[in-house]
């Protein structure tokens, strides 16, 4: 499983150079709803909840230390 995922990562890296848009084609990508962190506060609430109720954390941002959640 891990090898397949790593292979997928490497393949997607090598494909990057031929992808993309011209500066004047960024109208849709510039919209707030297309930002990766379009609502950091929502992200914070969700991360806090899942961090304290599940055994995994991190991925999208730092897993970090945090709280004595129980």
């Amino acid at each position, binding site marked *: 499983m891990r090898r397949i995922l790593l292979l997928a990562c490497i393949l997607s890296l090598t494909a990057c150079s031929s992808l993309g848009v011209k*500066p004047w084609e960024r109208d849709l990508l510039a919209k707030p709803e297309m930002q990766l962190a379009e609502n*950091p506060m929502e992200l914070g609430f969700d991360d806090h909840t*899942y961090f304290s109720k599940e055994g995994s954390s991190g991925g999208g941002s730092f897993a970090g*230390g945090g*709280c004595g959640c129980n």
Partner: protein
Amino acid sequence: MQLKNKTFTNISLTLAAATCVLATPAMAATSEPDSWDIDAGLLIYAESDDQVQAYEGALSITKRIDDERSINVKAVVDVLSGASPNGAVAQNRAQTFTRPSGNGSYTTAAGETPLDDTFQDTRVALSTQYQQQLNRLWLYSGGANVSKEYDYLALSINSALARDFNNRNTTASFGFSYAYDTIEPEGGVPNPGVSVDDPDNRLEDSETKQTLDLLFGLTQVINRQTLMQLNYSISDVSGYQTDPFKILSVVDSDGWANDYVYESRPDQRTKQSLFWRTKYNLQPSGQVFDVSYRYFWDDWGMASHTIDSKWRMPLANSHFIEPHIRYYNQQAVDFYQVYLDEGQPIPEYMTADYRLGELQTYTIGLKYGFPIAGNEFSVRLEYYLTQVSGDESLAKGAGMSGVDLYPDKSAVMLQSFYRF
């Protein structure tokens, strides 16, 4: 076209999570230099059966200093109360437990999952994050956090660098975070594997834990409508990771728990994850699909899969709705066991905390957003179900026959956000 100041993303939207900022390719700015952006949020989290209830308020203020620099300050206050599973198994008779502090006791009725009802805390967290465009292609971000609750102190710093390539269609980022946590449980740190009724069951007053996170990110513009993100992260945690409030039942051959001992977790854990995310803007409707997948694994034997998807649908007059579905599946750590057998040696590492067991969780929710006086208000309602699994045949003898060893749990979350 919004090409002015294109090296910045909307700062108020990005500063909270340093790596997210840096993984976002440089695009148009929506706020002017010397402007202030304020985000306010409220979370109400309520579990069924009078378990944990949490109220969390957050305020985030971003000051854009100039075209290149911005600073953000965020404050969060949590108020928590309710009851939490203590790790002991349900029994066909009432059970009485000593409180984690060592003072007093509480009783669980026959057939009920033992819940520690002393759970009550207030947490205050403050963080600051600074971001600077170093030159046309390089972006720096650094920050610090402090979080304090009654028996827990968390301190952390983070720093990250990102560089654009390929006409700003590719962004590579690298970040690190270091955290230092101190726990000071009421009554002292319990001695793992020792009976909760043993008067000699306490060690020192406090313990510490250090976490080092490294995160490598790559963001790629695929085409005019599609953005893709790929992260690899590794987290090394050393120090005290046992939950001082969790215990295990010691069960005899008839299924009766005659003793309870404190749990014990290794003091070293290395966590890794691969995270992939895609955002797609469907034209001409303007609907946005946001799908992510995370594969997580660690050296405690846990592995998990998380799939998260959101679908934002614009309505008339800048209103929108956003359905959300999340699925999470984890396998248990190697040292998870629902109880210990009487007469067997106490293992070095053990936990009956369901959060380290085999479980699936499901989140389903809906968000509704609309403008108020030119600012955005949104409200989000979510249902969160946790299904714990395991070997049902372990419910042995008269003491445990018919009891639910792996009770499900559900929660409702209500969130609201205002941005001005």
